[in-house]
């Protein structure tokens, strides 16, 4: 029985306790003589107290100071003065990492804050400790602003510790949660981390545990990578990577296990060893997660996540973060390739990619003098995504010295993605009332015409494969004047222009060939179209094409495309110039005829004028260096243009409704790769086509030379010339001052390259060594056209162009000097035979089919069988053996390779390629003469609906 404690009992007990044991009984007997029960009780308690000993006493193993109330936390680690840790005053525990506890401390010697990380005692194994010390020493040798500086390493009471700089901030995950960063902020912050990793890799150190928790962000926005190589230390020597990564640390924290697995590379998940490319993968995961707001590989359990890492592709970033520039998306997706060989091979590449994003983003911001800092929110995952872009309302800019402002029609516009098809959409048009849109898409196979009623999210395939060859370079589809029909034209220009009812039905002929690109005025009473006769004459006719009369024709070599009416019907806008060399501009002409008037001064690719009112015309245009096309706005009266789209998104077409309040635009993200087809005795087909493996994700314009393959890696603004040799790809020339518009010419020994750049508004020839170490401008007086080629002895370069005397084919000595004219008349894209005796080139381009002509190096004409090739791109290559000429023929979906036997002059078809989703431009033959390597550009695009505010 244990009676309740009474106050007097307590008092007596306490009093007795203060006496020495021997005196207690006497004391009690004296003081409480008259209260025997009390005495009994107190004595009982006293006895119990004595017997209790250390009963219930808390275990206090460590020495502690009595001076003040320190939070018990300090008791756990209280280094003794004089010991290596003795000069640190522990301030508090910062947190618990996967491997141990981190404390904030004050370095009393150097008077600075530090962080001390104590590893869990489990890492007590002798070998592990030695490895830890070694690895830590290696990590301490890394000196980089974005790597957490390691000051000291040691051991305290059986636990390893690291002393590092103290970062006042948070980790990347919290930073993202708090700041909701823009793309530019992400690129900026992570480019530092990328550089840190690059630095570590160069020193031979792999991080192995790149994840947001291991990236600290200081209050002044600096990123610091922490915990280098420590992941490796947690392994017992013979365990596999999966086990240690998933279980070695913090088995007590379930959330941590899952998180770690999500950053594991496929090779690690498969139990193979990790190398620097595993770090690159993990970095890609972090970048993806920051941009997309979700992880690329998810699952309900570790196993599910690992499966996704190994086998499932991540959701395209284009869906989750469309405002991310193309380059960034490509870089992230490249880092997340399952095969290590397909990723960036070094962190430096990734760092470069991120830096470029920073630069371009900065350019966009500074281009507009007044910017509103609107942040693009993460998109919800629905098929039609709303993208509100904060656009500056007014800009100031200069035009030829004059300074004026122009209102941005896209200010406060609402962007909606109209399609979520895979593949390519092109050439979007919108009905006058803005209710319907029509476009070309390859969702169901070769290009078809699709119709949608805006806002319904539903699409009808109107042609369903019944109309081939819809994909061309002119406008191919549109609405009739009254909106009840849809016209279309295939890219085979000898076919008529046809028209069909809005919701499908049998097409009928509207205009006979070679009529192209019809457009009705706003009240539907008149139409304009042009033909492909020399000078592209333009005709105005009645609503059904009756009574056509010519209002204008240009010079024979000049083309007029994309006619469009102003809303008041007083003007017809069109793009005019020389599309071969991308020298075009917007013009206007009265429908009654007269002299056309030039409106812009791009001298580059200009297309799809879309008037939104009587004073503003939107259109797409490329930069001088070929970048783009971007979306532009023209103030017609002032003849002043301004780019109105931002970022690296390419706008390949734009069209406006009648009231100019609604636009449709195709936004492109082309995919360019190299492929090969073997030269066989039989006819080769699509099934023989194989991808040509290259480390670069994008590649165009292949050229073999010596032991190297040269190509352009096309990355939006800023193409580069790359060289692939012995399994390694290096960028040897960066098109910063002008893009690469034509395939390079490579000398036979592969030691020199020649290419075309834009200088002072003209295309010029430039030469360099294959390492990019000795760039030289050649033939300043020559405005070149097409691609250059080398003589087999490497002493001359042949190229088409024109000088003050006119067009012609020229040869230029590599020593420099005046170009030597070889022919007169338009010429382009020569190929020099391997015995040096013959130069074959494309002659005057009439109707898109220039003939092949041949000339000798001394300028005398040579006999040549009548063969025509298509205009766009380089179409002829000699076989390395010199016995034949390979040329490309066919338009539309058929892109065939043919061979001309130079001895017998007979021709045979080598390959019949029918993939209409891709557009082939350039090819070359492998040095062994057995394969043709060609590029294929696949448009990968979406249609955007843009609603302008009232």
């Amino acid at each position: 029985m244990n009676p309740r404690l009474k106050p007097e009992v307590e008092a007596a007990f306490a009093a007795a306790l203060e006496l020495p044991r021997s005196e207690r009984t006497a004391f009690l007997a004296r003081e409480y003589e008259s209260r025997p029960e009390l005495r009994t009780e107190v004595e009982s308690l006293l006895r119990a107290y004595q017997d209790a000993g250390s009963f219930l006493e808390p275990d206090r193993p460590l020495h502690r100071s009595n001076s003040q109330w320190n939070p018990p936390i300090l008791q756990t680690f209280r280094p003794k003065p004089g010991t290596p840790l003795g000069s640190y005053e522990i301030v508090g525990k910062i947190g618990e990492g996967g491997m141990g506890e981190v404390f904030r401390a004050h370095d009393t010697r150097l008077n600075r804050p530090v962080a001390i990380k104590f590893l869990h005692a489990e890492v007590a194994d002798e070998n592990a400790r030695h490895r830890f010390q070694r690895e830590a020493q290696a990590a301490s040798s890394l000196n980089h602003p974005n790597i957490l500086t390691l000051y000291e390493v040691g051991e305290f009471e059986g636990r390893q510790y690291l002393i590092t700089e103290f970062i006042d901030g948070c980790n990347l995950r919290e930073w993202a949660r708090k700041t909701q960063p823009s793309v530019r902020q992400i690129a900026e912050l992570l480019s530092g981390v990328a550089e840190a990793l690059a630095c570590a890799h160069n020193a031979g150190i792999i991080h192995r545990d790149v994840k947001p928790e291991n990236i600290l962000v200081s209050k002044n926005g600096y990123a610091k990578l922490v915990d280098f190589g420590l992941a490796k230390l947690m392994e017992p020597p013979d365990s596999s990577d999966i086990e240690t990564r998933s279980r070695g640390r913090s088995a007590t924290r379930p959330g941590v296990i899952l998180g770690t697995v999500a950053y594991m590379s496929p090779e690690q998940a498969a139990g193979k060893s990790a190398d620097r490319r595993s770090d690159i993968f993990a970095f890609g995961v972090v970048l993806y997660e920051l941009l997309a707001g979700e992880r690329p590989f998810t699952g309900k359990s570790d196993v599910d996540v690992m499966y996704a890492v190994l086998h499932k592709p991540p959701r395209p970033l284009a869906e989750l973060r469309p405002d991310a520039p193309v380059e960034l998306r490509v870089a992230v997706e490249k880092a997340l390739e399952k095969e290590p060989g397909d990723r960036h091979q070094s962190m430096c590449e990734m760092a470069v990619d991120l830096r470029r994003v920073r630069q371009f983003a900065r350019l966009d911001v500074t281009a507009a003098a007044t910017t509103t800092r609107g942040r693009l929110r993460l998109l919800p995952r629905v098929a039609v995504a709303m993208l509100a872009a904060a656009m500056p309302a007014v800009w100031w800019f200069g035009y030829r010295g004059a300074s004026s402002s122009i209102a941005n029609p896209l200010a406060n516009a609402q962007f909606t993605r109209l399609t979520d098809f895979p593949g390519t959409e092109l050439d979007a048009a919108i009905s006058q009332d803005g209710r319907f849109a029509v476009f070309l898409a390859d969702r169901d196979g070769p290009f078809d015409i699709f119709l949608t009623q805006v806002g319904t999210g539903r699409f009808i395939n109107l042609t369903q494969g019944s109309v081939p060859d819809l994909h061309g370079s002119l406008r191919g589809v549109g609405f009739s004047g009254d909106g009840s029909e849809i016209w279309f034209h295939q890219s085979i220009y000898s076919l008529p222009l046809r028209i069909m009812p809005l919701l499908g039905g049998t097409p009928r002929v509207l205009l006979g060939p070679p009529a192209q690109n019809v457009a009705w005025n706003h009240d539907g009473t008149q139409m304009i179209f042009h033909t492909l006769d020399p000078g592209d004459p333009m005709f105005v006719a009645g609503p059904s094409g009756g009574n056509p009369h010519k209002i204008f024709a240009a010079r024979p070599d000049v083309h007029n495309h994309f006619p469009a009416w102003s809303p008041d019907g007083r003007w017809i806008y069109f793009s005019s110039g020389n599309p071969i060399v991308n020298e075009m501009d917007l013009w206007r002409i009265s429908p009654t005829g007269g002299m056309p008037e030039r409106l812009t001064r791009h001298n580059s690719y200009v297309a799809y004028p879309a008037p939104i009112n009587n004073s503003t015309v939107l259109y797409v245009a490329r930069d001088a260096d070929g970048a783009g096309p971007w979306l532009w706005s023209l103030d017609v009266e002032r003849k002043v243009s301004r780019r109105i789209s931002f970022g690296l998104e390419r706008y390949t077409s734009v069209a406006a409704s009648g009231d100019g309040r609604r636009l449709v635009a195709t936004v492109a993200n082309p995919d360019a790769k190299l492929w090969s087809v073997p030269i066989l005795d039989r006819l080769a087909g699509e099934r023989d086509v194989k991808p040509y493996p290259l480390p670069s994700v994008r590649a165009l314009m292949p050229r073999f030379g010596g032991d190297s393959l040269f190509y352009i890696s096309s990355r939006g603004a800023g193409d580069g010339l790359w060289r692939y040799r012995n399994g390694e790809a290096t960028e040897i020339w960066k098109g910063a001052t002008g893009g690469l518009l034509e395939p390079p010419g490579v000398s036979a020994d592969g030691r020199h390259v020649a290419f075309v750049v834009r200088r002072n508004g003209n295309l010029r020839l430039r030469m360099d060594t294959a390492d990019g170490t000795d760039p030289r401008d050649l033939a300043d007086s020559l405005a070149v056209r097409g691609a250059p080629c080398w003589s087999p002895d490497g002493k001359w370069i042949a190229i088409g162009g024109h000088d003050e005397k006119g067009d012609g084919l020229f040869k230029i000595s590599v020593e420099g000097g005046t170009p030597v004219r070889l022919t007169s008349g338009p010429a382009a894209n020569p190929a020099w035979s391997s015995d040096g005796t013959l130069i074959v080139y494309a002659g005057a381009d009439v109707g898109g089919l220039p003939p092949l002509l041949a000339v000798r190096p001394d300028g005398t004409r040579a006999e040549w069988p009548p063969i025509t090739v298509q205009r766009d791109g380089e179409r002829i290559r000699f076989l390395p053996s010199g016995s034949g000429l390979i040329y490309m023929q066919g338009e539309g979906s058929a892109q065939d390779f043919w061979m001309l036997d130079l001895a017998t002059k007979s021709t045979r078809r080598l390959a019949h390629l029918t993939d209409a989703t891709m557009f082939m431009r350039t090819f070359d033959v492998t040095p062994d003469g057995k394969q043709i390597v060609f590029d294929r550009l696949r448009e990968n695009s979406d249609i955007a609906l843009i609603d302008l505010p009232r």
Partner: protein
Amino acid sequence: MAEHEITRLLNRWGEGDREALDELMPIVYSELKRIAAAYLRGERPNATLQVTALVHESYLRLIDYREPKFENRKHFYAVAAQAIRRILVEHARRRHALKRDHAVLPPDSGFVIQPGVDVLALDEALTSLAANAPEKAHIVELRYFAGLSISEVAEVTGTSPATVKRNWAVAKAWLFRALNAGAAG
């Protein structure tokens, strides 16, 4: 629940809001249980759990370290102590049900507070002590289940160390007698 939420609850409790304690208790409890469970399962075979370490870990996890308020810590420990008591009792009950004898936690269970203490009996005795001397029971909780020292308890309870010492002695004696009723006279 987020860290700052817990801090807020502790603040409220410090300001006298009793309901905040009710909200807090389950959180602390589940947090401590989670940690304890790891220990109880023997996944840290070489580590003997110090109650203090347990409480520290849970404290860190629940409180934003950058804003330590004394009241919060004080109240936290009170809550933590109660929570740990409940965990131990629960654990002991389960083992008792299995072993059907002395509900003593074996030393190698990785969850040793003090070997040989009958947790269930202690819990019972503590409950009855709290019936007429709650402040003493509280002191025992803080010392035994949260491992605080005399001066720490003094700070947490807002009394002088001497008072704490006195109360502690009485409580300890009383509890010892209760647990050893058969043995002592």
